[in-house]
């Protein structure tokens, strides 16, 4: 790991000033992604601004019934919080499905949102990777693609977004609040991450000097009947091949409200807008679940080793919706 200067920021004002003035600086939260990437020489900041001690650690109920989550809240603390467990179970389950107990104790909400892909060619400095080195090519094409995206990829990059938490946040219409010396902005999570297109190194909508300060969840009664289901190569402590975050409410025999997002298959946390559109107002049957899932996956582009993800995603969507229906999605 290359040497770097260390600045500890006790508050937001100090953090955003430091990042704006220090050359090639990066924030560090729990460090579980950044330290790993620095050790691999993929991230090479000259200055690291430590934000982990900033008191953005609250999980608070908002006046309208939503919840505001401080960016420094540890993943484990968020998953264990009574407000999240009772009102947004899909979020608690998504967090608990990711990484390990030790890593969740370290990882922050802000860091989880900005964690980078686990594509092996991104990690391998001997391989071509347009994300790591713009214009160098992409060795995933023709390579080992079991973990790559089937939705939202481009000819430049088919890396999958790794976060479980973000899949639940996408389904829940979460809004990310960021702050810099220029002021505060609010960005819906579904617009926060960018598709690779011709510029896979540009991963999000935020500037390098913007600090994530909070995530807000809107009041969403349907979320009490919500669930996260993750399919992976081993039972625990592995990234998703496919995951589904869903919430469902049925009234008078038709789908009244539905939220659906996918992980493991997308170049970004994938909100399943097309499936939601087809489900709304439809009868909650396995047949209509299957039709909606197939429509969402219709634009999928598979590589030799990840074609199985298309059917796996469809089946996981159907199974998750069926589970929600049985669990009381019908009012």
């Amino acid at each position, binding site marked *: *790991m*290359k*040497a*770097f*200067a*260390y600045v*500890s920021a006790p508050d937001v004002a100090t953090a955003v000033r430091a990042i704006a003035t220090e050359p090639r600086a990066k924030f*560090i939260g*729990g*460090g*579980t992604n950044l*330290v*790993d990437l*620095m*050790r691999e020489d993929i991230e090479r900041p000259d200055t*690291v601004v*430590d934000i*982990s001690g900033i008191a953005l650690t609250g999980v608070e109920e908002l006046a309208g019934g939503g919840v505001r989550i401080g960016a420094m809240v540890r993943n*484990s603390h968020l*998953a*264990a919080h*009574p407000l999240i*467990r*009772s009102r947004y*179970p899909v979020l*608690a*389950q998504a967090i*608990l*499905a990711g*990484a*390990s*107990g*030790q*890593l969740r*104790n*370290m990882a922050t909400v802000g860091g989880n949102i900005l964690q980078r892909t686990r594509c092996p060619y991104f990690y391998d400095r001997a391989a071509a990777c347009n994300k790591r080195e713009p214009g160098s090519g992409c060795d995933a094409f023709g390579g080992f693609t079991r973990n790559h995206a089937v939705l939202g990829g481009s000819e430049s990059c088919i890396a999958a977004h790794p976060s479980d938490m973000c899949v639940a946040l996408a389904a829940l219409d979460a809004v990310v609040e960021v702050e810099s010396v220029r002021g505060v902005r609010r960005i819906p999570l579904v617009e926060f991450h960018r598709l690779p297109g011709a510029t896979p190194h540009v991963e999000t909508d935020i500037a390098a000097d913007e600090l994530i300060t909070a995530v807000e969840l809107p009041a969403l009664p349907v979320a009490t009947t919500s669930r996260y289901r993750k399919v992976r190569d081993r*039972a*625990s*402590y592995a990234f998703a091949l496919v995951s589904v975050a869903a919430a469902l409410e049925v009234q008078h025999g038709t789908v009244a409200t539905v939220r659906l997002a996918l992980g493991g298959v997308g170049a970004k946390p994938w909100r399943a807008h097309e499936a939601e559109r087809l489900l709304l107002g439809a009868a909650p049957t396995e047949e209509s679940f299957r039709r909606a899932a197939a429509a969402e996956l219709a634009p999928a582009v598979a590589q030799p080793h990840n074609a199985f993800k298309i059917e796996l995603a469809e089946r996981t969507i159907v199974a998750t919706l069926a589970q929600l229906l049985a669990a009381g999605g019908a009012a």
Partner: protein
Amino acid sequence: MRVNGAVQSLEVEPRVSLLDVLREHLGLTGTKKGCNQGACGACTVLVDGERINSCLALAVQYAGREITTIEGVATGGQAHPLQEAFIRNDGFQCGYCTSGQICSAIGMLAEHRAGAPSAVTEHLAAEAVELSGAEIRERMSGNLCRCGAYNGIVESIQDVAAGHADVLAAAR
């Protein structure tokens, strides 16, 4: 920082991990380096009672905190109940993962006592979760054992978890 109760005043470069500080600077080699990338759990230590992977922790970020390593879990010459249970139940073979397993299990039992759910907890909103074998395996999944001593590890943790319950029951 305080390490196993003793104040340690150190000056290290910002890029040095907490794991390397413990092993190389303080000579506390009980904490192991398996993967150095968060994927095995051999480096697990407790910070203010919470388990973390010390390999992905920059030591500077933990200045002023209370660190407990395997060298610090025994009290007054008396082995920690988990250490005794691991010996009794064959909770290890080569022993490389063991210090991480024991520190992780101490942290995990505290999380469980505080009511934290896991990925296999069916009723998320429930305040207390029964610590079944499946719950222990899921909560301990961040600690790999290349020797495959998992059955003994789970039995050891079950022993200690049940023992604590007995002690509490007796006190009532």
